[in-house]
């Protein structure tokens, strides 16, 4: 018989730099898993991506074992990174805070493909472009 799941938690953490401090400690402690072991696991598996934010889905079982699935960085994080901006715009339709060309949109789409509900790179690119516009980032045609 399959093991019972007691919790499913998604965390967005700095790659390679997780510690038992918040949010990891307070969010995972109630699940009963070994928190220090978890941070070590996460850090070793994301060590090659230091500087990015990695979402991780932790599934905890009744015997306090867990599995973790690493995701691609959040699209907003990638847009900010590629557009070279700190924050999205508060009024995206009026105040533009940065630009992305098609090549950069394509790069982001490629990174995000495994986690997007898109079958073609073009579909993924249009999702990325939509997110960018919603943050006040202009997507240029070339």
């Amino acid at each position, binding site marked *: 018989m*399959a*093991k*019972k*799941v*007691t*919790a*499913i*938690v*998604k*965390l*967005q*953490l*700095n790659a*390679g730099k*997780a*510690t*038992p*401090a*918040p*949010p*990891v*400690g*307070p*969010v*995972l*402690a*109630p699940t*009963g*898993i*070994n*928190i*220090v*072991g978890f*941070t*070590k696991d996460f*850090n*070793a*598996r994301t*060590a*090659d991506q230091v500087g990015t*934010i990695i*979402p991780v*889905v932790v*599934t905890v079982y*009744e015997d*306090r074992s867990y599995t973790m*699935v690493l995701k691609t960085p*959040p*699209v*907003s*994080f990638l847009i900010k990174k590629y557009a070279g901006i*700190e*924050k*999205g715009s*508060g*009024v*995206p339709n009026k105040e533009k805070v940065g630009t992305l060309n098609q090549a950069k949109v394509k790069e982001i789409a490629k990174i995000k493909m495994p986690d997007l509900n898109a079958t073609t790179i073009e579909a993924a690119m249009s999702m990325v472009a939509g997110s960018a516009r*919603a*943050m006040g980032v202009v997507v240029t045609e070339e």
Partner: protein
Amino acid sequence: MRWAEISIEVNCKAAEEVASVAMDYARGGVAILDPGMAREPGGEVPLDELELAGIPTKGPTIVKFYVDDDELELTNILSEIRKRLDKEINRLPGCQEVLSISVRMADEKEWSSWKQTFKPFRLGTRMVVTPTWETPDALLEDIVIKIDPGQAFGTGQHATTANCAFMLERYIEGGERVLDVGTGTGILSIAAALLGAGEVTAVDIDSTAVKCAKDNVSLNGVQDRVKVVKGDMLKGIEGPFDLIVANILADPVIGMTALAFSLLVPGGYFITAGYVEKGERDVRRALTDAGFEIADRIQDQDWVSLVARRPDV
């Protein structure tokens, strides 16, 4: 230590967007508690194969994050977040509802409860590790290591620490000068001393770890042989050593191979760990490039430990 815990209730698919706003203020990262993850067909967990033990599968998603417990800063953060959510999120399709934001003070003691799950266990073949609050069931000939883990790394339960402990058992014969890089709780240094090492230097960059390691060293009565120092890897460390153990991550291990080589006596061993199988090739290359020969290897799940030997002259 206290933190302010901010929870934002999200009634739409905008959890990622809310999380990205939260990320701009959060310490360490954000958590997304989404009951939808449990019922998503083909989602994170194949639920047809699993049973859920009373976890909610319906209800709002909560984005939770932590900031410093500072009233003024908290007020500023909350008002800024409210403004940004109004502008950036409530405008999204299906997100007309007002998002609720709640704040709670959280104390570090709340999540130290994981200590309850720390029970005595066997390390390597001859050692038993026990938290200070338990009495272990050890054999007369066993070496008992007492550990008070605090907030530092390394209770010994992790495969990488177990791999290193196993290698220490194999390579310590008695009287060696040992260096433990990234000591955490000090567990490997204590193990080395109790296995017979002559003098042990334990290094960690984190002051919490240094204090934790010092406490544990005294707890085991090996303070005459184990010296705990705060330092950045091998910087400023003076050798020579007969054995170096580094249970960290792939990159720091790779970065220290040349210096480790120079700090070891000919015939000395460098025990490396803290990386998974996919990082092994790079570590192996760095070790051989530095002049080491690979002497030993152990793997537990996908955690690898390589032992490198500085060749005799």
